[in-house]
């Protein structure tokens, strides 16, 4: 186990996969300079400009070429720079990458990783801060991962690269710098399995990515009042760990789902609806209001989950 940051963990995982498998390559704008978050730092020096490819500002071609290259024996890792720019390549991702295997009756495989730096960071406003896991969850053919720790960033990067289907890797921009223990080597990413972060009996709190820590902070406060929250890091949006979430909600009889993305038709709805269908648990969701991400910190606060609102919602559920 080694302490490292998310940016270091994901870089190491990518480098190790590139060493292991010569068909793995990364492409995107400005990768040769390390990428916007230095998540590619040093990789071009090691692997050369052909395998760490600097591209034109051509999102449709970046994604489309990656689809073609993935269908023809390579494993491209696409850097989208900011999730938001994926919208410039939506046809290539959704109508081509996600559907190719199926449309062609299983003839094509698209082992593609799409890295999407996600969410709030540095007040980048409406076109550089979106969280769209609910969109990808709704899109057949895609695997959707939302690591919250350096260990998961490392393990999921490896699993994503080894996956024979297209994987969306949502990398929250405010997590790059956090550090934690990472088990290097051949970790088991357990795609589809959640992580129990804190055991509790009174209420189940499910979250992912940046907001997991916010939920843990809230749980600590709740514990002081005698409310024991079970906090689960979902880790994967698709497939998601229905079994564990339903079991926990059955135990605690209360489910709270917390995410940064817009509440309306967010992935919290899928979880809450599934749990409501399967159990008698009370359910509640916390997410952002249905607004574009605003610039000013005073306004952007509407997009930040806080321990206070989680505490209030948990208390309400428990009451």
């Amino acid at each position, binding site marked *: 186990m080694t302490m490292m940051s998310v940016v270091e963990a994901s870089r190491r995982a990518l480098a190790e996969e590139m060493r292991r498998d010569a068909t793995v390559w990364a492409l995107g704008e400005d990768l040769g300079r390390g990428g916007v978050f230095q998540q590619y730092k040093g990789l071009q020096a090691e692997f050369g400009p052909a395998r760490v490819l600097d591209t*034109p500002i051509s999102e*449709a071609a970046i994604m489309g070429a990656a*689809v073609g290259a993935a269908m023809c024996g*390579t494993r491209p890792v696409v850097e989208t720079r900011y999730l938001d720019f994926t919208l410039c390549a939506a046809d290539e991702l959704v109508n081509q990458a996600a559907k190719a295997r199926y*449309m062609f009756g299983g003839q094509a495989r698209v082992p593609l990783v799409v890295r999407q730096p996600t969410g709030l960071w540095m007040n980048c406003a409406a076109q550089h801060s979106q969280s769209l896991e609910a969109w990808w969850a709704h899109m057949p053919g*895609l695997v959707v991962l939302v690591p919250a720790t350096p260990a998961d960033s490392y393990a999921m990067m490896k699993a994503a690269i080894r996956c024979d289907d297209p994987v969306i890797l949502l990398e929250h921009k405010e997590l790059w710098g956090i550090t934690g223990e990472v088990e290097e080597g051949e970790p088991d990413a357990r795609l589809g399995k959640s992580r129990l972060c804190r055991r509790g009996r009174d209420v189940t709190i499910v979250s992912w990515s940046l907001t997991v820590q916010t939920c843990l902070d809230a749980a600590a406060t709740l514990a002081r009042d005698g409310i024991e929250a079970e906090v689960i890091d979902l880790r994967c949006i*698709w497939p998601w760990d229905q079994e564990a979430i339903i079991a926990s909600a059955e135990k605690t009889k209360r489910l709270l789902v917390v995410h940064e993305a817009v509440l309306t038709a967010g992935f919290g709805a899928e979880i809450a609806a599934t749990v409501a269908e399967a159990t008698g648990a009370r359910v509640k969701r916390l997410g952002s209001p249905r607004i574009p991400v605003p610039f000013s910190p005073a306004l952007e606060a509407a997009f930040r989950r806080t321990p206070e609102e989680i505490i209030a919602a948990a208390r309400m559920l428990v009451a």
Partner: protein
Amino acid sequence: MNDITPTRRNAPAAGRLLAHYRTMAHIRAFENAAERLYNEKRIPGFVHLSTGQEAIPAGVCANLAPGDQITSTHRGHGHTIAKGGDIGAMMLELFGRAGGYCRGKGGSMHIADFSIGMLGANGVVAAGMPIAVGAAHAAKLLGRNTVVACFFGDGAVNRGPFLESLNWAAVYKLPVLFVCEDNRWAATTPTATMTAGPGIAARAEALGLRTASCDGNDVAAVDDLAGELVRTVRGGAGPLFMIARTYRWSGHTSADAGAYRNPDEVARAKADDPLARTRAQLAELGIADADLDAAVAAAEAEIAAAIANAEHAPAPRLEDALREVQDVGAPDFARGARP
């Protein structure tokens, strides 16, 4: 504007031309059958017919090696046949049968045969272009000496991926031959009315590609030009671009009578039949009419057999709808509709 002048062979070799004729006869027979099957409501969905455009896939694909690849468009039957596709599997797919190319999941608009390097028809205009470029990128990364022929229509030149794909191929010097099938129409719109500037070749040249054009209804001309270009591309020259002028005999889809077109224009195009032209050339080269009739009859018989086989072949089972989506996170009916 067109800065490549192919070295024209003095006379096409009869054997090669006859092979082209056979390919074209198969395409023609397939398209005629598809049209009839649609009109008789014997197949689901729509078909986009390439009748009248047969010489382009025939002439281009004759220059591709088995390991070479193509990407296609919504109008992909001809490309598939010319690349060596299995007519039986394609017909099964048109009928939506379990034994079809795509196990009934794709239909005419998503025909593919990855075993012969046919990387798929595509329902989105120009969407095959970056895929072709990516296939060529993979070939370069893997050190394969293969070429990708990227077919697309004249309507595709107004979509952004046209620019992005050509630029990409040129920047990375990828082995792609772009083949524009210029049939002058994009659905119900004359492409020229929607396409500004000096023309398609100028666009490609402005993106760093050398271009050449030919009469797309003259299979020998297509063959000559494609032969030269494929050789050059395979030699490492980077991408090249060819324009083959042709005409779409039918409507845009099998549901479209094409009534918006001037009947004279259509009649003139039909008089310029690529099959008839090849037949005349072959006659001049001494091939007997009977041999050519036999080629046509053989093609028609093959297609008839494919229909006979497909019409009563088993449909896929409903539970097959859940297969081939993805491994991790595969769907199940419990979480969706009924089982």
